[in-house]
């Protein structure tokens, strides 16, 4: 896969490029939005990793240009120092497919990149889908956790499967609600939170089990799988 990385900071750009190359993909570094757009006019990429704050042309402006001018736009990952939750939501709403705050943990960035590739270039789902010890049987609407059958309601099953299929990817509340409950304006606002709370409990989606359900404030949820070996070097 061809990845384009955009950052005005050379060290950062280098770090991203090394990480992408290490995962077996090719990576073209760009230091300005104009250069990236010039490249986008000529060739295509399978993933864009963009910084937000850039001289001349910001990451959001690049996203806007891509959405407007590229017929089949690749997934876009925002990688930025902006930590404020309002910024996260603004970036996602502007058209980014995911958002990672700098300094990034390599494991998380790898997982997010993989999630974006998986979603964008997905193969047809199997009848039974396995995710690290969780096995989803869509026909029977049954899920088993390391061989033990877990009883879920139909909505809980659908929600869990949606989250697992989009592992490491932020899903907006609107996205989840429409996928699981359809367009139902009368749905109580707490419904999603209650279902999330229940599948977290029933499927033990906790860090000591290797999974974490992260609320993306004012936006939605993201299911993450923790890399036990790497997580020790995480920080606040």
């Amino acid at each position, binding site marked *: 896969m061809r990845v384009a990385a955009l950052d005005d900071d050379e*060290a950062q750009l280098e770090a991203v490029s090394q990480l992408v190359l290490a995962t077996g993909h090719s990576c073209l570094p760009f230091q300005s939005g104009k250069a990236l757009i010039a490249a986008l006019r000529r060739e295509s990429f399978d993933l864009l990793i963009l910084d937000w704050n850039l001289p001349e042309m910001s990451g959001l402006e690049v996203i806007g240009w891509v959405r407007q001018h590229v017929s089949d736009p690749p997934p876009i990952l925002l990688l930025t120092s902006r930590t404020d939750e309002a910024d996260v939501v603004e970036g996602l709403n502007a058209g980014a497919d995911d958002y990672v705050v700098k300094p990034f943990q390599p494991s998380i960035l790898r997982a997010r990149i993989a999630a974006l590739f998986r979603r964008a270039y997905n193969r047809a789902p199997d009848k039974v889908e396995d995710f690290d010890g969780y096995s989803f049987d869509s026909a029977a609407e049954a899920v088993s956790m390391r061989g033990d059958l877990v009883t879920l309601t139909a909505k809980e099953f659908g929600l869990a499967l949606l989250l697992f299929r989009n592992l490491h990817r932020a899903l907006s509340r609107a996205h989840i609600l429409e996928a699981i409950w359809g367009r139902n304006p009368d749905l109580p606002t707490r419904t999603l939170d209650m279902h999330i709370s229940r599948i977290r409990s029933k499927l033990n989606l906790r860090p000591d089990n290797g999974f*974490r359900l992260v609320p993306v404030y004012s936006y939605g949820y993201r299911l993450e799988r923790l890399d036990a070996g790497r997580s020790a070097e995480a920080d606040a």
Partner: protein
Amino acid sequence: MAPAPPRPRRRRVLFEWAAVAAAATAVVAVLSLGQLAARADAVIYDAFSKLGVRTPRDDIVIVAIDNRSIQALGRWPWPRARHAELLRRLAQARPKAVAYDVLFVDPDRDPGADLALAEAVKAARPTLLPLTFDVPGENGAPFRTALPAPPLREAAAGLGQVNIAFDPDGVVRRAFLSEGDAGHDWPHLMELTYRQARGAPSPAFGPAPPPSAPHALDGLARRRPMMIAFTGPAGRFRTISFVDMIQGDVPAVFLRDKLVLVGATADGLGDRYATPLSGEAEAMPGVEVQANMLDGMLSGHAIRPLGPIGALGFALAPLWLLLASFLRLRPRENMLLGAGLIVAVLAVSAGLLLHGGLWAPPAAGLIGLLAVYPLWSWRRLEATSAYMVEELDAFAGEPDLLPDLAEAARRPGGEVIDHQLDLMRRTIGRARNLRHFVTDVLQGLPDATLVLAPDERVLAANREAEALFGGTDGRGLAGARLADLIAPFARAEGEGEGDAAAPDVEAAAPDGRVFSTRRQPLTDAAGRAAGWIVRFTDISAIKAAGRQRENILQLLTHDMRSPQVSILALLDSRDGAAAPDELAGRIRGYARRTLALADNFVHMARAETQHYAMETVDLGDLLLDAADDLWPQSSAKGVAVEVSTGDAEHLIRADRSLLTRALINLIDNGVKYTDAGGRVECRVAAGGTIDRPTAVCTIADTGRGMSPEQAEKLFERFHRAPSAGRTRADGVGLGLVFVQTVIERHDGDIRCESRLGEGSTFTITLPLETNGGPGSPISG
């Protein structure tokens, strides 16, 4: 200024009304039942009677014993033979009936004369003879019935009484159709005549048994009263002179089938009476009064007077109608209604008299109507005046905004009017001073301020407002519409949809200044909307400061972070690997601390902003999120973070992000101060009272703990817990201040209990969402 209490005033008016109603009703009842207004009724009756003048019937003929007859035939009384002669003449003419209104009470000295007359009476059948009553009667009897002599008694076709009934003013207006005692009831001679003419009792006589004794006159019961409907003044009936009749000068056809009344009209005989229509000069002979009676009965003009109850009702009905309207209508309408009722009473009375055969005396009712209106006006004015003085008194006693007026001593005593005038003068003075005061206050306000009427037109504006909106003087803005004034204003950046006139918005003036507009409704003393006060505060400087703050936050969140991020990236790069490991680790540590500090400042700034995005959340979910967020640190350090939320939800209103960050800070604190192998226990439980249920969250660590004094001082801003040794935990002071700020903004409470060497327990109490019960179980 308290609103005027309307109820006591209303009660007072009702009380006055009841008193006026009772007094007027009593007066009218006495007037009506006691017939005290009879004279007035008589005057009205006479006036109405003039409207009832009509042509006398031609089937009634009077044979008059007139002056000419007396001159021709000699002095009265005449011998019975002369009367017999007349009767014989009449018999030849074959009238329908003869009523001979001459008393033959005493037997003649010559019994033959009586017999001869009796023969003549028989011949002229039907002849009706009168009787009379002597009052008082013999031997103490109340009266004696004076009958005609016995032969005549038998010869007559009927005997009828001819008593005349005088009204108090001596005028004859009524007759009684039957008189007598319990034993015998004598019909009136004219009633008998009517029966001869029509073959049945008159309708006025009526079939019903008469009431026991409505009009007792010295023991003589007078029943069936009837008002006489006079056809006009005297001398209008067909009259034949007695002497002409005797001399045969009258053609028989003139009397054929007629009702003939014989009676005296001569001046000397004294049988003359004043009648409503007789005028002052000419009295009416008795026989003519009888003729009028008969005429009325035959023509259907017999008039029955209303009984006492009916008369009372007729007098009271209009009075009560007017009284009722006093409570409903305005004074002007009441006056018109009163005048209308007077006319109506007269009209109804006249109509009943002339066409209904009923005499309803109107005077009592009229007097009631005329008296009650001024009476009520007086009492109402009195009540209003008393209310006004009361209110003015109360107002004078209220605390005044302006002290010099409040000090004006109240002068007790003095004349009532003086007191009222004094009160009024002072009240007006206060109102004037208050207006000056309000104007001065408005002018003294530092912000541009407009006072608006409810229709959003400017009532008053101060100088700043005139300068802002371009008015030249105080008149310049008065009457202008708010919408026109603020039309050139643009909504400040960042404001949502809507117009600049909405309450509490920011608007940008054309010159670039930014104003915060705040509108406040004005109400009067009774709480009704009276308009608006709109204030325009120049917040350009505040806005500029806010932008600067945003810029600083921007600097912290991005510009200050970016170099640190680059440092870390550089250390991890191939070039960075050249640096010595120990040096690289220390650089990495400093870079991370700078990042953490920046993040803490950003969080703190967020916690102190105005806008919290409140939503309903389960506190247990937040605690799990916080614990999960810290898992990398806690698991790395070997500290177990245990969360027990129970099966129940604890729903609170919270900004999810900020409250989770606060919990993260607390758990992080616990992890930092706890050595490997220790525990941080997090719990949520229900608490509080039924009225104010709460969710209680405890975060307890098994760390090194604090002394009670340290725990007490923990929540002081930028206070850093002095830890044992030289170990320094990063940003703890700011972290706890952030926690405290966030919890307080959620109307919550945070406490810390700690013992040195045993650990610390933080307890957070947050109010549960009110419409969800405490700890409601999770349902499908």
